[in-house]
């Protein structure tokens, strides 16, 4: 279902945009405004990060956003409600992104159930490789939600195939080593990696980590299906306020 939406959409656009926010950061109200401007500016899907105290795969910017949200009393419960609200209100697919312990404590089946109820299409869980995810996969399948898995430049072809066999909706390809928020060198080095990704799966490919401006998007167009803007919008909101998000997104494509 998510895959189908994306493939349809790709008939109209050469590349799709996925954006990212940390829920409750700077606040739920501002978050709502940000989602609104992003949707208006033509974003194709969004990942909503539920803050976790140990966001091991995130760089300093998102890490601090996680902490700040938690310090402000953001709970998983409120995050899921918020996700439900925006999913109801806005016409694009939403995903949750968070670490495994959040799902685990909530109860995997219960979590997938709430996602279904709130029309959250899928989940990205960066510290859960498919090997460790049997229960998660069953729950997601049971509630017809998409488990989005991750490829990395260090993943060999065989393993990519194995991972893809468990994924659904699309594959999230991280552009490079390291955590979110650092610069990526968008150069021909990426080609062979992305070729390998393509070879491994027919699922749409999203590329994230370090995508920050129109140049990057132009570079990626034709090579991947979805460009992921993560840290960059958080930086923007921190520097220039919520109002700057819309124009920024509009200018990307």
């Amino acid at each position, binding site marked *: 279902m998510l895959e189908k939406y994306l493939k349809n959409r790709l008939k109209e656009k050469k590349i799709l945009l996925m954006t990212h926010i940390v829920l409750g950061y700077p606040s739920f109200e501002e978050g709502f405004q940000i989602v609104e401007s992003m949707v208006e500016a033509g974003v194709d899907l969004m990942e909503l990060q539920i803050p976790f105290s140990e966001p091991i*795969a995130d760089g300093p910017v998102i890490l601090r956003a996680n902490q700040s949200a*938690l310090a402000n009393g953001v709970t998983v419960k409120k995050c899921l409600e918020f996700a439900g609200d925006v999913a109801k209100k806005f016409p694009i697919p939403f995903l949750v992104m968070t670490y495994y312990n959040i799902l685990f404590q909530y109860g995997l089946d219960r979590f997938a159930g709430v996602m279904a109820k709130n029309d959250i299409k899928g989940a990205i869980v960066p510290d859960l490789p498919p090997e460790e995810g049997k229960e998660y996969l069953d729950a997601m399948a049971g509630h017809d939600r998409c488990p989005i898995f991750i490829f990395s430049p260090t993943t060999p072809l065989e393993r990519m195939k194995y991972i893809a066999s468990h994924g659904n909706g699309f594959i999230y390809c991280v552009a490079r080593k390291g*955590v979110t928020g650092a610069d990526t060198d968008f150069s021909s080095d990426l080609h062979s990696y992305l070729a390998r990704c393509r070879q491994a799966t027919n699922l749409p490919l999203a590329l994230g980590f370090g995508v920050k401006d129109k140049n990057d998007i132009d570079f990626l167009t034709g090579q991947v299906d979805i460009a992921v803007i993560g840290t960059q919008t958080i930086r923007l909101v921190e520097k220039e306020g919520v109002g700057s998000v819309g124009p920024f997104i509009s200018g990307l494509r």
Partner: protein
Amino acid sequence: MLNRGYYDGFGGAYLPEILVATFDELEKVFLEAKNDPDFWQNYENLMSTYSCRPTPITFAENLSRYFGGPRIYIKREDLNHTGAHKANNVMGQGLLVKRMNKTRVIAETGAGQHGVATATMAAKFGFDCTIYMGEVDVERQRPNVFWMERLGAEVIPVKEGTRILKDAINEAFRDWVTHMDTTHYVLGTACGPHPFPEMVTYFQSIIGKEARKQMMESQGRLPTRIYACVGGGSNALGIFSGFLHDPAVELVGVEAGGKGLDTGEHASRLCSEDAAVGVAQGYKTYFLQNHEGQMKETHSIAAGLDYVGVSPILSHLKETGRVRFEAATDDEVVAATALTIRKEGVIPALESAHAFAQAFREASKLSHDDIILINQSGRGDKDIFTVADAFNDPKWQQFIIEKAKKYHA
């Protein structure tokens, strides 16, 4: 689906995909080493020429008399080079780093013990070295930072999160996902994703191997009970592993009871209601966390026990009942430290003193025929700033004030 490194449901390897290949390599090299008959021999040689293994067991004659019960023996990991059992683990991993042809090591550290040990190993092996340490700990544990820097390590204060040990671990992982080609992450305890719990336990098992042999040679029999403190679990697993298959030997792991289990200010994951099974920092175990899965703040007088998680192998041994877990409070620990110093002339680290405190609590209930073995995982004289504060020594405070005046001038 391949599940690796599980101990009855605890453990695993909850890794960001970027690290999977690195862990595959690490596991491969570790298993090769483990199966190479020369490797353990080399490791023992290194530990016996660079540190002073085998470390002795010391008969605590005065304490035995004082409690009137069992004979009390102390396994002297405090005599290791750099002052704690941490040396066993880092030197072992150092040998693996060489096998992997990597040139840089990173590590997290809380109290600084593991940081100093890693920096020492790096100096010895000629590796570059970066140590991540929570900013709060950098401030508290300046002496260890001083030595790490002298040893050539770069110490990076972690300003994120609660700025203590767990945040340093996260930061080390963030470094690793960027630099895994050249870099090995020397995890300091038997936690983290597979193969770390198994690997760290393997290196620390030298403690238990020696202790078992020493007890048989000197006493002709095994101890009745063995006590070890439990931070991440490496010293406990190290000594316990020599006796796991001796069902008559009771194994007791002692966690940080802090200000009391009912105050919330403690670091007890295996005997408090505040902990639950979860997944963080790459593995599944008991964590001190709230009902939504966010990690809690922890407290212990001993920085080395002040950690939210615990070895999955210990969680497993708790469930099977093979190891009994207890908690000792800060106050009990200070009293046990004072008594041990006074009676035996050995200075346990505050971490190790947890094991002493619990042993003392139980000693008088055992008989003359019993033998107790306590693992003194480290020496306390490194932590004079903490210990002097724990004892609230006014002359020490005056000394520091005078010293500060001189630096001001």
